[in-house]
């Protein structure tokens, strides 16, 4: 199987994996409570019913494999905003900017957490958007729905430029200084998804962030394809800026490329044009690779032709 056919399914699978991981972390909170309060399936059933007992015993089986639940929770947890997986911390660059601007305190784990996201952006570009971001999964679905709807309806295709997302980053930082870091949970789509999942599963309440997700999804559906990812999301803009000269990117074999064809730019969710060799913001999602009629596109080292 060629790499061209693998990338797009892979990106969907990894994003689904991230969503499942977030759900698992949120459910771990529920499980920890039952573990420390009852530590006995029969007592759990007496307190909360049969279905919770099934959940408890199933999670027990998982933790037989993973180890002591308290220790697992100490080294795994969090949300898309700041997460620990196997003891390795990951920090969102926007969170670091926000805390730095507001003059909050730092820990070494927080600073070291920047290492992996930033170096990933330097090497692969904006891969976070296509392989990690749980919100972009929803927006990609909207992108496909829009494709179907465009057969019957004339949908607007609003175009902004890169300044808007930079403005959201600056304005959001200002709003965070003024009103608290919580405003990011309404501005950043992936943070909103994390909040909604966490509120819903761990605490059983509806989060205000759900409204923000619905707003962005409608924006995507009715104002332009992948509107949020292209023009609004400040994290995507920041990662795109960091990875604008990334080592790995989409390459084009100019000899095989068909002059009249513009398929790659039309299917691209990120508004990138491999046709013009403009691959800033490329998230390596592989949509253009699958659609290219002449197979002239490949993923590889930027310098080599």
């Amino acid at each position, binding site marked *: 199987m060629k790499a061209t056919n693998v990338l797009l399914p892979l990106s969907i699978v990894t994003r689904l994996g991230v969503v499942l991981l977030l759900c698992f972390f949120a459910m771990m909170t529920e499980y920890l409570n039952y573990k420390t309060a009852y530590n006995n399936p029969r007592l759990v059933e007496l307190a909360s019913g049969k279905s919770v007992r099934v959940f408890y015993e199933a999670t027990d089986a998982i933790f037989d494999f993973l180890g002591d639940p308290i220790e697992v*929770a100490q080294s795994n947890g969090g949300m898309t905003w*700041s997460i*620990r997986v196997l003891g390795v911390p990951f920090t969102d660059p926007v969170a670091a900017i*926000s805390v730095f601007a507001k003059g909050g*305190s730092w820990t070494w784990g927080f600073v070291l957490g920047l290492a992996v996201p930033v170096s990933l952006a330097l090497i692969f570009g904006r891969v976070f958007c296509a392989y990690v971001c749980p919100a972009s999964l929803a927006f990609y679905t909207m992108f496909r729905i829009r494709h179907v709807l465009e057969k019957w309806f004339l949908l607007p295709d609003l175009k902004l430029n890169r300044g808007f997302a930079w*403005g959201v980053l600056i304005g959001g930082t200002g709003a965070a200084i003024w009103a608290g*870091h919580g405003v990011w949970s309404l501005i950043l789509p992936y943070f909103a998804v994390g909040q909604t999942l966490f509120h819903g599963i761990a605490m059983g309440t509806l989060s205000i962030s759900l409204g923000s997700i619905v707003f962005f999804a409608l924006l995507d559906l009715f104002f332009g394809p992948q509107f949020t990812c292209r023009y609004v999301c400040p994290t995507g803009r920041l990662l795109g800026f960091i990875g604008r000269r990334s080592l790995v990117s989409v390459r084009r074999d100019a000899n095989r490329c068909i002059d009249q064809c513009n398929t790659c730019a039309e299917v691209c969710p990120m508004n990138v044009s491999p046709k013009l060799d403009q691959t800033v913001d490329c998230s390596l999602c592989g949509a253009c690779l699958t659609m290219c009629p002449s197979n002239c596109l490949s993923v590889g080292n930027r310098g080599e032709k």
Partner: protein
Amino acid sequence: MKNSWISRKTSRSSFIKSLIGGAVAAFLIPLIDKLPAKSRFRRFLRPPGALPGDAFLDACIGCAQCVNVCPNKCITLYGLEGGIENLATPKISARAQACILCMACTQVCPTGALEKLEPTKEGMRAVNMGVAVLSEDVCYSYAGRTCGVCYRACPLPGEAMTIGLFEQPMVHPEYCIGCGLCEQSCVHMPQAIRVIPRSEWEDRLARARLS
């Protein structure tokens, strides 16, 4: 059609226009705070080891890792009920579920909004979540019916709380750490003892001195 994808250069003026547009759009978000709110008067506690007052809000990014690790499930996240400045920050409602001072949340906080503490007596004494305030006119023990439940729930018995005749509790504010276990355990409805933030307690003290 062709020109629309060929011309990908943006002029400086349109870039700056979009920049300002984005900044203004992001600044509209805090205005939801101006919408009518249900209640701002309900008090909540912060998790143990929290930095005092605004320093906590400066540092806390709302990543929910403390909520995730809490084995007692006492920490929950704010929605909009505490205003936009408290959005997504952790809170403890002591009457519903009080903190058992296991200090798991202080170990995982990535930004240091919660200072690292150990689940020992020394670690407990370093906690400053608030002060317990007793309403003697409500308390069973002060009405002649011995109860003493709050004393038995206190993690620092004899220091933060002592009992006298008929198990009448007495709170010592200089040693009370405000975990809220007494408030959770109180058998009277509404509770005779409740935890208030230390700043509010100092205000009350000043007012009492004036009168």
